[in-house]
C-alpha cells in the first residue's frame, strides 16, 4: 500500500456517511475502519484508545464530524 492509498477507503466511507453523522453526531469523533463505522465518541482520547484496541496495527480513520472542515493555519518562517 502506498502512502497515497492510506485511509482512502475510510475517507470514502466517511464521505458516504457524512450527512447521517452530521444529523445525529455533529461535533463528535467518528472512528472508521475500512467500510465500517466502529462508533462515535465525545472525546478524541476515548476514540483513539478504542481505535488501537479494535484495529491494532491496521489503519483507522479518526475524524471529527463537522459541517465545515477548517484548514490548519501556519505562519511562514522568515528565516
Amino acid at each position: 500500500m502506498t502512502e497515497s492509498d492510506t485511509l482512502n477507503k475510510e475517507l470514502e466511507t466517511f464521505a458516504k456517511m457524512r450527512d447521517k453523522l452530521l444529523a445525529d453526531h455533529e461535533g463528535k469523533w467518528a472512528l472508521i475502519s475500512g467500510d465500517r463505522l466502529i462508533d462515535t465518541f465525545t472525546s478524541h482520547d476515548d476514540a483513539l484508545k478504542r481505535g488501537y484496541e479494535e484495529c491494532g496495527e491496521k489503519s483507522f480513520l479518526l475524524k471529527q464530524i463537522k459541517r465545515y472542515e477548517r484548514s490548519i493555519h501556519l505562519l511562514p518562517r522568515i528565516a
Partner: protein
Amino acid sequence: MSIGDFRTLNLEETGPLYPVLIGISTYHADSLQYEGLSVPEVIEAMALIDTGASLTAIDTGITDRLKLMPIDYVNVSSVTEAGVRAPIFDVDLIIEPNQLVVPNIRVVELSLGGGIQCLIGRDILSRMLLIYNGVRNSIILCN
C-alpha cells in the same frame, strides 16, 4: 506547577527553540506491547514554539523513524500558500526541561527543514503558560 526554563545564546536570532522528545502515542504503545511487538524509541528533537500555528506539527523524518500510520488528513494553509493536504498522526510529546508529557495528541506532518523537527502550536500552548524573556534569552513553559 511544573516549570521548564530553557536558555539559548541568542533568542532573537534562534527564535523560541525548546528541546522535546517525540514518541508514538501511549495508546499505540499499549497496543504494540499487547501484541508483543517492540515500541520505537522516542526521538530527541528541537521544537520551535510557534504561536502562529493552530496545530502542532512534526517533520516527515520523525514520522518515518517512528513508523507512524496516519489517522486523518487535513488541509494546511499559510499566508503564502493555499491549502495543502497533509496527514495527521497521533504522538506523545515530552517537553524536556520539565519532563512535561503531553500524551495522545494529534499532530500534522510537514516538511519543516532548517534544523527544526517540530512546531509547538496553540493546541499545546492552550494548556500552558509561556514566557518569552528576551532580556535573559530564555523561554519558560509551565503548566
